[in-house]
């Protein structure tokens, strides 16, 4: 199974993602460069990693969302391809319009790095089918701009469609409705602020739940 990790200028969790996908999950992992526009059809999964693309200048993820490769990523997602955005990758997906909502500065105005308890809202998704709805999942966060913003009506609709996958048990950043991770309507695009790739072998193995979930879907596909 072949997966791709995109590097933007300023991405800094791309190595961590590659390490986890390749060494821990055992998937063949290619690095993709934001300026290139390769055919993505050979990939089962694309990962937009964490970091500070373009230094988080202007707005997190805004400039990366306009990278040349993003046209291809959009086409890939439109065709039903699986796309995961972690932390800065989540911000890029929102800025690119592949996920609803937006991410703003934490209400504490501070960067925060710690383990947080998440609630698995639903397992009716390719990203959480290995988990149990209602379970607690502890994953690390490390961000300064993780406050998810969404209108109440949109939230209600997304919730009804099982698009809200993860919420915080103790909201660390002021996210609306405690949202930590959401997917699009088709559920093939998922973004989350916590870092499953930092919790897949060393600090804990809690992140494996996400990888096992998507693996089962990709293997069937």
């Amino acid at each position, binding site marked *: 199974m072949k997966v791709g990790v995109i590097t933007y200028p*300023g991405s800094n969790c791309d190595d961590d993602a590659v390490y986890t996908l390749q*060494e821990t999950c055992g998937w063949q992992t290619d690095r993709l460069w934001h300026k290139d526009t390769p055919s993505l059809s050979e990939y089962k999964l694309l990962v937009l990693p964490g970091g500070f693309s373009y230094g988080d200048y202007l707005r997190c993820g805004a400039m990366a969302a306009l990278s040349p490769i993003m046209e291809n990523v959009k086409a890939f997602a439109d065709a039903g391809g699986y796309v995961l955005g972690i932390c800065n990758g989540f911000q890029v997906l929102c800025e690119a319009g592949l996920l609803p909502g937006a991410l703003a500065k934490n209400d504490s105005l501070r960067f925060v790095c710690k383990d947080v308890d998440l609630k698995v809202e639903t397992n009716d998704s390719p990203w959480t089918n290995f988990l149990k709805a209602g379970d607690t999942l502890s994953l690390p966060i490390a961000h300064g701009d993780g406050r998810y913003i969404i209108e109440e009506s949109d939230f209600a609709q997304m919730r009804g469609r099982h698009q809200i996958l993860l919420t915080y048990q103790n909201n660390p950043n002021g996210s609306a409705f405690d949202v930590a991770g959401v997917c699009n309507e088709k559920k093939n695009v998922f973004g989350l602020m916590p870092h499953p790739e930092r919790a897949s072998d060393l*600090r804990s193995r809690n992140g494996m739940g996400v990888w096992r979930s998507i693996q089962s879907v990709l293997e069937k596909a």
Partner: protein
Amino acid sequence: MIADTQITDVALAKQLGLTAQEYDFICRKLERKPNYAELGICSAMYSEHCSYKSSKPHLRKLPTQGPRVLQGPGENAGAIDIGEGWAVIFKMESHNHPSFIEPYQGAATGVGGILRDVFTMGARPIASMNGLCFGSETNPVTHGLVRGVVKGIGDYGNCVGVPTVAGQTFFHPCYNGNNLVNAFTAGLVRHENIFRASASGVGNILVYAGAKTGRDGVHGATMASKEFSSEKEPERPTVQVGDPFTEKLLLEATLEAMQKGLIQSIQDMGAAGLTSSSFEMADRAKTGLHLNLDKIPSREHGMSAYELLLSESQERMLIVTQEDKFDGLKAVFDKWDLDAEIIGVITEGKKVTMTYKGETVVDMPVDLVANPPMAERPLSAPSDLKQLWFMDRNQLMVAPLQQKIDRLLDTINFADPTPLTQQYDSMVGNRTEGGTFDDAAVLRLREIKSKPLRLAFSTDCNPRICQLDPREGGRRAIVESALNLAVRGATPIGVTDCLNFGNPENPEVMWRFSESVEGIAEACEALKVPVVSGNVSLYNDTDSRPIYPTPMIGMVGLIEGEQKLPYSNFFGTELELAIIGNLEASLGGSQLAYQWFKRDCGQPAATDLPASQRMIKFLGQLAKKNMAYAAHDISEGGLVVAALEMAFRSPYPETGVEIQIPSRIEIDEVLFGETCPRVLLAYAPENRVEIETLCSRSAVKFNKIGNTTDKAKFKVTQGLAVLSDMSVSTVKETWQNKWKGFFN
């Protein structure tokens, strides 16, 4: 013919910080007067910050050799062999003065500078630490400084993606008006990929790479060599603004170009910018250079040669390579959206010449600039040491124990640093293991597949001891750093130091400097750890009052093979506690002495170096047993603080401690003494025999001192007498809340 449009004289030289003798020396060597740009070059390179003219003779006393040393002091950073063909590169550096003027940018650019020192050597940075000293918490400016410095460090390191994994923060009135920001970074590299900064190969080209040059920080090096005064506004060059995004690009571009064989040698442009990087590279290779300043990518109009040479714009590199590699090099930097321009060529003749706008603006021997005359600084022992050593032991003796404990803990120096440490990304890189911000951070080296290897990092310095007895202060900084590593099971393998002192023209400051360095040297020799890099920051005074001597130590340790990390907290409520080392310790220079007498006093007892070495070895062997135990070194605040910290970090809120002091033993000395080396150990009772046996085989002392309980109390008894019985959770709450105020 040299352009002499601007004539210089002694008065101008003095304005730029040179002495009359230095100016005279320069004129004699040149056989003419230097022009303005040349004088600027000398003023920067002759400054204390660049020349080490006061400190160099003393630094020669530090042991820098050892079987693992691949690169000692003298390059951008030191290199230590860790086996399997890999090396760890590390260094610690100060950014004190810039951080006082503009805490956020000053601290940020400090982190940027140390990162560049490490990746210039070819290493990928994997961990950072910082040592911070601030003035009194009641000083109104302290809060702003703490907030700015912490945010600056965090924003820069987080953005580049290097985890900040450990550090030390110390508050004391002696830093009012002159706070310290010392930044440490370590990186990983294969032996064969270590790069050095030498301009060798006549005909090779010099390439400028990275961010464009502006007027920022012109004369930063000279500023770092002057004291602050609260009266007159210090000279303020334009503050340098850090750009961590460009730094990240520069890091990736540099490592990629190195890996593709496009770089022969490289140096970052740090203090004194292009001037120091070019002259130092030529000096190391005994070559000359010719530079064309018109080629420098600049972002401001109308910059003079002087400004181009002395700008301290951040995120820039000077690269040496063969001419035919330039296209490849440029392609790599283009890929990362960075400038790369040929600005010069390596020549014979140990001379640097520079042209600008068609004129020769600099024509100077390398040696004259790169090797300024050393300064002879007289030393004299302070006359008031005996007074400082006086401590009214009786007054303490008669006070009730609980009162002493309460006062001991009533300080910002006993506080949970979580509100600070959470602002640092401590996990990026996916190497950070276990609880970060313990005595030492531990990182697994995931890139090394042939053998499980981990590195441990710690930083330490106790300025009180350094003030009262600088030689002991130097020794203790080394031994405590080493113990911080050893309690996590790591073997110390290398040291970097950042020596922060006052004005070297003050003989008492210089005496303390010399003593500290000798103390560090003694301890390093005893523990067989070499010093491979470091930094000196002098002129840390305000209104002629020097800071306490602060030789901040950064130490690196190695853990080979699979072994479980020891706990650093009480991991159960039925553990036994033992002090490894002497039961009693001296109160001289202790936190209790300061808290009680409101001044640092008492004569610190000397660290027993052979005992320290045995203890480190013992801790290494204990860690290999794969037995569950917890270890924490006993330092500031003595046993009381060590035990409380271990209780606070227990996963069980009901965890308590009971300390039983044997009869006829001095209670204060057991509980509050800080003589080094002492370690607090917690273990399951069934393991006592094995630990005791190892202790006696290792010739270290084992003193059972109490146990953990499930009563959530901190209890001290002697015989039947209960001397203290306080609630752990109440103390913990205060401990947790102290730092929150800084960040609201």
